[in-house]
C-alpha cells in the first residue's frame, strides 16, 4: 500500500502513515540499534537516548534484555514448540541474533516473514536478513495496524494450515488504545491455526514508578517518531486471551526463562509467550 492511498472505510481511527525517512527525529529502530552497539543511527537518535538515560538509567540494559528475550523466545518456539514458521512484525534494524538466524540454527528449513512499516528499515532487512538456503525469508512493507495486508502477503510464504509463531517484540507499545491493539492481535491470532504461538514484549506500567513512566512517555511524544504507551500486567496478559501462557507467564523480559550470564539491571518490559489451543 502506498502512503497516499485513502484510509480504509472501516472507520478505524488514528491510522498513522508510515514515518517518512527523517533523520532529524529520533526513531525507535535506530535508537535500539545504537543501544545494541550497531552503527546505523544519527545524531537525533543518540540525543534521544541521552535524554532517556537521564530519565531511566537502565535503557541499555532494557534493550539488551529485550533482544535476549527475543532470542530465548524464538529458541523455545523452534526447539521446544516445534514451530517452523515465523511472522516477525516490527523487525527493526538487523543486528546479531535475528529471528531467522536463531530459528534456522535449530531448524534450517524454517520460514520467516519480516514485517516493518519503515521502508528504510525494511531495505536493511532485505539486504541483511538472508535466509539459510534450506529455508526462506520474505519481507513485507506494512503497518501492524493493517493486519489484512500483512496476512495476505505473508500467506505467499507461510502456510496458515500449520502452526505459525507471531512475534510482536517491543512494537505493541507504539500502538495507542485508539488503534485497538488488542483487536489487532486478535485478528492476527484468529488467522493462524491451533498450535500457533504469540510472543510479546511490551513496556509495562507496573515496572516503573509513575514519574519515570510519564517521563519516558512524554519524551517519546516530544522527540520520537513513535509515541509510546506503557501497559499494565493485566493489559499485556489480555493480548493472550483464549491462549495458554507458557510458563512463567507474563514477567519482566529478563525473567522469562533466563539463562546464565544475563547481567544485572531491571528492564521496563513485560515479556510472554502463549500457545493457541
Amino acid at each position, binding site marked *: 500500500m502506498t502512503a497516499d492511498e485513502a484510509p480504509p472505510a472501516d472507520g478505524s481511527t488514528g491510522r498513522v502513515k508510515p514515518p517518512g*525517512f527523517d*533523520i532529524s527525529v529520533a526513531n525507535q529502530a535506530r535508537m535500539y540499534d545504537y543501544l545494541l*552497539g550497531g*552503527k*546505523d543511527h*544519527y*545524531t537525533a537518535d543518540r540525543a534521544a537516548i541521552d535524554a532517556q538515560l537521564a530519565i531511566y538509567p537502565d535503557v541499555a540494559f532494557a534493550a539488551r534484555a529485550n533482544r535476549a528475550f527475543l532470542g530465548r523466545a524464538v529458541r523455545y518456539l523452534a526447539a521446544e514448540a516445534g514451530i517452523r514458521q515465523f511472522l516477525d512484525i516490527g523487525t527493526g534494524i538487523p543486528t546479531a541474533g535475528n529471528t531467522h538466524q536463531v530459528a534456522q540454527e535449530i531448524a534450517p528449513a524454517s520460514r520467516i516473514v519480516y514485517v516493518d512499516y519503515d*521502508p*528504510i528499515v*525494511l*531495505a*536493511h532487512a*532485505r*539486504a*541483511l536478513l*538472508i535466509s539459510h*538456503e534450506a529455508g526462506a525469508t520474505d*519481507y513485507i512493507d506494512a503497518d501492524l495496524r493493517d493486519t489484512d495486508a500483512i496476512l495476505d502477503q505473508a500467506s505467499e510464504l507461510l502456510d496458515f494450515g500449520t502452526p505459525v509463531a507471531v512475534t510482536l517484540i517491543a512494537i505493541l507499545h507504539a500502538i495507542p488504545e485508539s488503534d485497538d491493539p488488542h483487536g489487532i492481535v486478535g485478528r492476527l491470532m484468529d488467522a493462524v491455526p491451533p498450535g500457533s504461538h504469540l510472543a510479546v514484549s511490551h513496556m509495562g506500567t507496573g515496572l516503573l514508578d509513575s514519574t519515570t513512566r510519564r517521563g519516558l512517555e512524554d519524551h517519546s511524544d516530544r522527540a520520537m517518531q513513535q509515541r509510546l504507551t506503557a501497559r499494565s500486567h493485566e493489559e499485556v496478559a489480555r493480548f493472550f486471551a483464549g491462549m495458554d501462557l507458557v510458563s512463567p507467564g507474563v514477567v519482566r523480559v529478563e525473567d522469562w526463562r533466563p539463562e546464565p550470564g544475563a547481567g544485572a539491571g531491571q528492564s521496563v518490559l513485560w515479556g510472554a509467550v502463549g500457545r493457541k489451543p
Partner: protein
Amino acid sequence: MNTVVPDGEQPFSGLDDPPVEATVLRMMLGGQLRRLREAAGITPEQAGFEIRASRSKISRLETGRVGLKGRDVRDLLTLYGVTDEAVENFLALVRQSNTPDWWAKYNDILPGWFEPYLGLESAASTIRSFEIQFVHGLFQTEDYARAVTRPGRKGAPAGEIEDWVRLRLSRQALHARQKPPRIWSVMDEAVLRRPVGGAAVMRAQLRHLIKAAAMPHVTLQVVPFSRGRHAAESGSFTVLRFAERDLPDVVYLEQLTGAIYLDQRSDVEQYLEVVDELSGEALTPDASTRFIEQVARET
C-alpha cells in the same frame, strides 16, 4: 596484558586474538595513539615535533592511513608517558600491522591516494556504495574493467593498463573468502544503460551482475530512471564499515586525480542518510535483478 588505555576503555585485541587485517590494526593503533596523546594533553604539533613530522602526518598516523614505524611509536609513547611493558605490547602490535599488503606488487602504478582504499576495502565488514556512472569495481568483468581503465590513461603503456585491470580483479578475491564482507550496492539505471566497451562487453557485464546479485553476501539495487530525481546529488561514493565497534565508518569519494576519505561522524552521517534513502527508493533486490535481466535483453 598491561592496558595502555586511558579512561577505562577495553584495550584493543591482543596478540592471542585471531589476526586482524593490517589496516584495521593500524586504525585501532592510530586511534589508541590519539587517545593517549589527548589524555596527556599534547597537541598534534607537539607530537609532530617529537618525531620530526608535520601535524598532518600525525593525523594520518592517528587515522591509520599510513604505516607506523616502531621508532616513531616508541618516541610518541614515551612523550605520552606510557612505559615498560605497555610499550612493548604496543610495538608488537605495530610489527603485526606492518605485514606486507597483498597489493604491494602494484606499487609502481598505485597512486598514494588510492592505496588506503585498498586496505579499507579489504578490512571492511560491510561495503555500501552508490554508483551513478560505472559498475562498482568489485563487480566488473575483465573486459569492462579494461574498457573503463583505458580512456583515463591515454598514452599509458599497455602493460600499465593490464596491471590496473589485474589489480581491480584481484580486489574481487574477497568474494571467495570464507566470510566475505557484506556488499550492498545501489546503482542508478544509467550504470546499466551506458554500454561501456560496446554492447557485447556490456551484455556480459550485465549477466555478471545478475550472477553477483545471487551471491549470499551481495545485495544489488537499481534506482530506475522512472523514480525521477533521487537522493544522490552527491555522485558516486562508498561507505566502508568495520566490525570493530570503535572504528568509525569511512566514506570514500574518488576524483580524477585524488580521493577524499571522510571519517568524521558529522560528515559520514550525511552519506549514510543518502545511501539509506536511496536503498528505500530503489527497487527491491529481487525486482532489481529482474530489471537488470530486462536491460540485458535490450542491450
